[in-house]
C-alpha cells in the first residue's frame, strides 16, 4: 500500500519531468520544424574534401567562403568595381600651366551596412565605401580635396606624403557639418594611404575611414592591368581583435569572384596595409613571383619574391605576369587572417580562348567550391 503510493508519486513526478524534458529537447523541436516546413529546401554542405562530412540540410547555409548571397544595396562596397576604379579628379589648369585635380570626399559615420556576408556593422566611410575612392594624380599636379564632414563626429583627412603642416589633417579638426579644402602638390611618385586622424585614431581607422591615393611618375610606368588592394579587417565585437580580414573589405570575395587576368599580360597591384590591431599583414602569391616596389617610390624593384610583410600604413607596388593559365590563390601568409577571409583567386585566361565564358558565375562557384576547404600554400 505504502509502496504503491510512493510509486504513484514518483511516476507522476517522472512523467511531468520527462514531458518538460521532451518539450525542451532538440529532437522535439526538429520534429515540429520538419512538420511545419511544407516546402523542403535541400542544400548540401561539406564533402568537398576528405574529412569534411557531407551534410544535406533543409535549413539555411552559412557559407561566406564559396558563396555570396547578400542583398547588394546593403553592402559597403562592390569589390569588383572598386578593384580597378581610379578617380583622376576634375581637371583644370593653373596660370602657370600646372594641372589641378579636384576631388570631393564626404565622411559619414551614421550608417550600418554589411561588411561580411550577413554581418552588419556601423561603418565610418569616405564617400560611402570602405575603402574610400582611390585618388590618382601625376607628379607635379596640384591636388585639391574638398572635404565635407557629414557625420556626427569630428573627422579629418590625413594624407601620407609631402605637404604643408596645415594640410596634414591632424590639428585642424573638422566638426560635423564642417568643411575643409586640402591642397598640396603631388611630389614623390608612389602609392600612399589617406585616413582620418581624429582621436581615438584606432576607432576612426578600424571603422573604415581610409583609402589610397596614387601619384604616377611623369614618365608613366609601363602599360599594365592595374588594380588596388587594401588589406583591412573589422573588429565587429570590439575586443580589439579583428573578426574578419580581407583585401577590399569583403572576406573571401575574390574566392567566389576570382579576378580575371590575362596570361603573359603585366599585372600591377597597388597594395596598402590599413589593418588595425594586428602587428603585421602580408601578401603571398601562388604559382608566381612578383617585382616588389616598396612604397612605389622607385622605378627599380627592391625584391623579386612571392611574399611581402607589412606593418600598418606600409604599402607597395607589385608587378607580375602569369606564364600558365588557371586559378591561382593569393592570401595573407598569416594563415589565421587567410582563414578569417583574407584570401582570393586570380583566374589566368589564355587570351586566345577568352570568349563567351565571362560572367558565368555558376561555373566559377563550382570550381572554387573544391578549393574552399583546404588552404594550400
Amino acid at each position, binding site marked *: 500500500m505504502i509502496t504503491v503510493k510512493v510509486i504513484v*508519486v514518483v511516476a507522476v513526478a517522472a512523467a511531468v*519531468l520527462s514531458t518538460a524534458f521532451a518539450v525542451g529537447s532538440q529532437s522535439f523541436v526538429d520534429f515540429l520544424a520538419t512538420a511545419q516546413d511544407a516546402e523542403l529546401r535541400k542544400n548540401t*554542405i561539406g564533402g568537398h574534401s576528405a574529412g569534411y*562530412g557531407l*551534410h544535406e*540540410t533543409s535549413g539555411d547555409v*552559412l557559407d561566406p567562403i564559396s558563396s555570396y548571397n547578400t542583398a547588394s544595396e546593403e553592402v559597403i562596397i562592390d569589390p569588383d568595381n572598386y578593384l580597378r576604379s581610379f578617380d583622376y579628379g576634375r581637371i583644370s589648369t593653373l596660370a602657370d600651366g600646372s594641372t589641378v585635380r579636384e576631388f570631393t570626399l564626404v565622411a559619414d559615420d551614421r550608417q550600418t551596412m554589411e561588411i561580411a556576408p550577413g554581418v*552588419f556593422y556601423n561603418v565610418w566611410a569616405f564617400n560611402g565605401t570602405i575603402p574610400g575612392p582611390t585618388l590618382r594624380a601625376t607628379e607635379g599636379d596640384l591636388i585639391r580635396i574638398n572635404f565635407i564632414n557629414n557625420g556626427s563626429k569630428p573627422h579629418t583627412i590625413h594624407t601620407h606624403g609631402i605637404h604643408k603642416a596645415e594640410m596634414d589633417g591632424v590639428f585642424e579638426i573638422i566638426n560635423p557639418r564642417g568643411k575643409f579644402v586640402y591642397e598640396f602638390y603631388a611630389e614623390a611618385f608612389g602609392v600612399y594611404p589617406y585616413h582620418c586622424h581624429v582621436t581615438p585614431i584606432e576607432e576612426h581607422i578600424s571603422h573604415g575611414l581610409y583609402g589610397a591615393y596614387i601619384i604616377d611618375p611623369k614618365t608613366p610606368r609601363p602599360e599594365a592591368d592595374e588594380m588596388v588592394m587594401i588589406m583591412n579587417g573589422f573588429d565587429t565585437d570590439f575586443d580589439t581583435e579583428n573578426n574578419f580580414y580581407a583585401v577590399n573589405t569583403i*572576406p573571401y570575395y575574390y574566392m567566389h569572384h576570382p579576378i580575371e587576368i590575362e596570361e603573359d599580360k603585366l599585372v600591377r597591384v597597388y597594395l596598402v596595409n590599413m589593418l588595425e590591431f594586428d602587428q603585421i599583414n602580408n601578401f603571398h602569391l601562388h604559382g608566381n613571383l612578383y617585382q616588389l616596389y616598396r612604397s612605389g617610390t622607385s622605378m627599380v624593384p627592391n625584391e623579386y619574391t612571392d611574399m611581402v610583410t607589412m606593418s600598418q600604413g606600409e604599402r607597395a607596388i607589385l608587378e607580375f605576369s602569369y606564364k600558365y593559365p588557371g586559378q591561382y590563390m593569393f592570401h595573407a601568409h598569416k594563415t*589565421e587572417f587567410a582563414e578569417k577571409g583574407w584570401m582570393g583567386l586570380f583566374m589566368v585566361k589564355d587570351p586566345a580562348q577568352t570568349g563567351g565564358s565571362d560572367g558565368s558565375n555558376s561555373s566559377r562557384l563550382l570550381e572554387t567550391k573544391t578549393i574552399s576547404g583546404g588552404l594550400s600554400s
Partner: protein
Amino acid sequence: MEKDEIHRRLQPRWFASAKMVAVALVPLVVLAAMIAFIFGPGQQFLGAGTPLPEISIERIEFQEDGRIIAFIRNTGPIDVTVAQADVNDRIQQAAIEPSKELPRLAEAKVIIPFPWNEGEPYDIGVTSSDGTRFSKSVNAAALARTPDIGQAAFFGLIGTYVGVIPVLAGLLWLPFIKRLSLPKYRFFLSLTAGLLVFLGIDALVEGSEIAAESVAGVFNGQILIALVTILSFLALMYASVKMGERSKKGRTAEEVDKLSSYDSMHASQAKTLDQQHHLVVKPVAIALMISIGIGLHNFGEGLAIGASVVLGEIALSTFLIVGFMIHNTTEGLAIVSPLAKTKVRRMVGKLIIMGLIAGVPTIFGTWIGGFIYSPVAAIIFLSIGAGAILQVVFLIYQGMARAEAEKGRIMSDASIIAGFAAGMLIMYVTGLMIPS
C-alpha cells in the same frame, strides 16, 4: 409578475458574482493599460540602452563522418540572425537548422563539416548579424554516442558498476548495524545523516556548476535549483506524512501486535499502541525515502557521468569507476541504518527493492546523460535529489528527537555529533578518489 419576482431575486446573486469578477479584474485592466502605454506612446520615454543579442551554445557533438554539431539557443532579449560559424575562430562553411533566424529562446542546430581530431580541444563559435561572436570550448573532442544497443549496454554496465553493485553491497552492513548498542546505533544513524547531507550539498554544488557553465542566464539556473530543492523537500515531506497516516489505518491490531513484539528495544518507551505503531512503521518508510533520495541523486550522478563521457570532459578510467564504487557503497549503509530494529527475514525482498530503487537510476542517468543531455534537466534532477536527501535527514533527526524527547538533547549528544561529522568526512575522503 412571477417572472419579475424571480428575476429580482436572481439579479442580486448574478450581480454579486459579476462584481466579484470585476473586482478581480481591476488590477489586470490597470496592468494591461500600463503595458499598452509602454508599448505605445510611452516607448519614447523608456527607450534606454541598446538590447544586445545573446546566443548560448548548449551542447557540442562530434560526429564520426567529419561533422561538428553545435546546439544553440537565443537567450538574449531580441531576435537574432546567425551570420557565420567557426571552429577555433576560423570561419567554416556550415548549415543551420531549422533557420538562421532565431526568435527569443528558439533553438537551432549548427552543422559544421570539419575534420576534427579525437582528444583535441576545440572552440566552436557562431557570429550573429551584428558581428558578435559567441563560443563554447570542449576540452577533448570525443565521438558522440548514438543510442544503439552496444552503447546502451556499455552505459548500462557502467551504471551497474558505479550505482547498483555498490549500493547492494552496502546493504550487507545491516547485520552489523543490528548488533550495535543504542549509542553506537545512534552514531551510525547520525553518520547516515552526515553522508546524506554531504550528498545533498554535492548535488547543489554540482547543479550550481552546471547552471553557471551551461545554462543560459535567462533560465535563472541557480534560482531554479533552490526552487526545485524546496519543492522536492515539501512534496516528499507531504508524501511521508501521508504514508505514515495510511499505514496506521491500513493495519489490523493483530498485525501491529505481531510487529511490536519484534521491537523489544523500543517497547519499553512505547506508551500507547499508536506510538508503538509509529515506531515500527517509520523505519521502513525512512529507509524507502532514503533510497528514493539516493536514487534521484544517483540519477543525477549518472547524468553527469554519461554527459561527461560524451562531452569528452573525463576519460572513463577504471580509477574513476573504482572511486564511484567506494563512494556509493556508503549509500547502502545509509539505507540500512534506520532498519536496525526491524526483523531481517521480513525485510530481504524489500531491502533488495530499496537497493535497486537507489542504484538502478544511475543506469537511466547514464543513458539520458549520454544520449540526450540537457543541462536544464540535469540541474532539475540534481535539485530533486538534494531536496529528497534533506527531507530524509529531517526525518532521521525527527525520529531521534522523538526517541530522545525526555532527555531533550540531540545536538549535544557526542555520538550523534561524531557520527554526523564522520559521515561527512567519509564522503569527502572517498570523493577524493574520483578525479574531476
